[in-house]
């Protein structure tokens, strides 16, 4: 079965705008949740998931490098200082907090999963999203990578790797579907090959990305997914081959423009 991409969004935390109709839902949310919800709104809009069948057959696969680490640290702070812990703060520190908010706000009642992964988180989520559509468990799903990193990691990296790229909190989000009529692209193949190493330093790991003929090198765990998403959004008429190599693994993704989109 072919899996299609019908919507794509990528953004940085600094650029995210929360639509007014979502502000009430997110008044107590942390940045990790806000990124996930804002990205989902960008790809789903206000009109999606009208029928009961749509709601139950739509899923979410969110993968993340560090999860809501700033909120984890806030919880740790309360515990080490023996302060009363806010139930809201604790519930937002759980790794699937963003997925829970997204499912609640957009009434998504199908398969929802959060995953934590240090090696190409977005592509691991994409692999699971494709697999579950092919299996028939869902007919569509949001695939996201959400990163807020944390002030702690930012501080550590500035001290240990002052020359390296700054990690930029943000999100990449695709809406996958088995329905070609709304598709912009079809996913032709995805392979992820692991390297047999125990020595990868994830704080400074370099990724070498090739998108067709263009090349980048960077150290930001979200950047490959953002670059790919932005390139696909700009150029909907050409096939795309994305190869990203790091010390830990190599990803190869081949995407074609959808026939229906070109008509």
């Amino acid at each position, binding site marked *: 079965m072919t899996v299609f991409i019908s919507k794509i969004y990528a953004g940085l935390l600094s650029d995210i705008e929360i639509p007014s109709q979502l502000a009430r839902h997110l008044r107590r949310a942390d940045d990790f949740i806000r990124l996930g919800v804002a990205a989902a709104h960008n790809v789903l809009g206000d009109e999606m998931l009208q029928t009961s069948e749509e709601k139950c057959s739509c899923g979410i696969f969110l993968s993340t490098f560090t999860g809501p680490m700033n909120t984890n640290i806030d919880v740790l702070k309360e515990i080490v200082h023996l302060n009363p812990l806010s139930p809201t703060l604790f519930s937002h520190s759980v790794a699937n907090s963003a997925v829970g908010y997204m499912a609640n706000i957009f009434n998504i009642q199908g398969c929802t999963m959060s995953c934590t*992964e240090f090696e190409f988180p977005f592509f691991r989520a994409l692999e699971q999203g494709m697999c579950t559509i092919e299996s028939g*468990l869902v007919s569509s799903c949001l695939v996201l990578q959400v990163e807020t990193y944390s002030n702690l990691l930012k501080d550590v990296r500035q001290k240990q790797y002052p020359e390296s790229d700054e990690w930029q909190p943000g999100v990449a989000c695709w809406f996958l579907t088995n329905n070609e009529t709304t598709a912009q692209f079809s996913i032709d193949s995805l392979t992820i090959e692991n390297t047999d190493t125990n020595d990868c330093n994830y704080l400074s790991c370099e990724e070498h990305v090739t998108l067709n003929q263009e090349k980048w090198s960077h150290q930001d765990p979200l950047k490959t997914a953002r670059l790919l998403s932005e390139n696909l959004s700009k150029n909907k008429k050409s096939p795309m081959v994305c190869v990203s190599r790091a010390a830990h693994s190599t990803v190869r993704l081949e995407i074609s423009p959808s026939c229906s989109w070109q008509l």
Partner: protein
Amino acid sequence: MSKRILPEISVIGYGCITAAGATSLASWDALQQRRVNNKIIPSIFEAPCFYVDEENSTFQVLSKSDLRPHNRTISLALFAIDEALYQAGLTLEDLRGKRVGLALGTTVGNTFHNEAYYMQWENGEIPDPAPLHQYFDNNLALYIQRLLGINGPRVVITNACASGTDAIGLAKIWLEQGLCDLAIAGGADALSRVACNGFKSLRLIAGESCRPFDKNRQGLNPGEAAGVFIMERDEQSDHKKLSLGFVKGYGIAGDAFHPTAPHPQGRGLQLAIRAALLDAQINRQDICMINAHGTGTPSNDIAETQAVFEAGIDPSVPMVSTKGITGHTLGAAGGVEAVLTLLTLNHGHIIGTVGCTHPDPLLNFPVIPEAESQALAGIIGISQSLAFGGSNSVLIIEGGAQ
């Protein structure tokens, strides 16, 4: 119902380590004896917890000398995996280079919560970097994939308390879709002050031994554990392993209701049960037992029993919770409970819910209290999990050992 032609997914090994016992059979034996082994661990929490004493545990397939520094969640997972590999008759040589999927659920196993590091950092000192290095070296599935030398899909599912169930369900899909030839799946979680205090903040902690489904239940007891299945497509049993059972169906659905509380009618769980029955291609009447999530919190037990009733399961089907002997082991719970469900099916009788002496009359589905046990009328059962975020997951498991 349209019939799909999918391979049967066979369980060829299982393992678990809980506070009740260092192996699956030891945990099973504690369940038969209704033995409750919880205690207050002052360094962790002020209320009773189920803490695993793994000091005397040994490996039969793995080797301690091969292990890099690792956290307690990984340690628990390795004991469960070692038992499962041994039971399946698999050596590391059998696994190396093979397409072996690894799906593991956890909650705190993949978070950074080193208090000493945090305090030094907060005070502007330069902390010892070792805890942070270990955090980055201790992704649960990545660490174990590299240790076992296996190739194949891997995932760490962090779906809160349904993580272990989802890991087994996802691995079933991988096998059906041909992404791997063998899969190791389940959950692991160590006790943490973060989770214990978090549940306390939500007023979900019992000050005494937990009493799932009891009219006087106060809440849950935190626990730690690991539980896994080793699974393969039944058609490919080239090493002629005895099938110990089957993962026949998987269903997952969301409440889309509240970040932490279950939907009062268990809307998502109803959907998940129906989806799992459809996936298993069986009828409700084929179910002979339910191993419930049964945390012992007032809201969970009401919503869960309501959902099972609404899903149309016959009230004569015995429903229990095993958390009275394991505690709520969070990301491990789905893995541990899948193992205990399979053991129950293979033994043909079910033990009542430890801690439940007077079932709550407000529950909408009857449960088996501690003093009772029942012979099972079939070989297919349900193991189900509910989680923060409104996620609900159901496995349908068939016994295999005769």
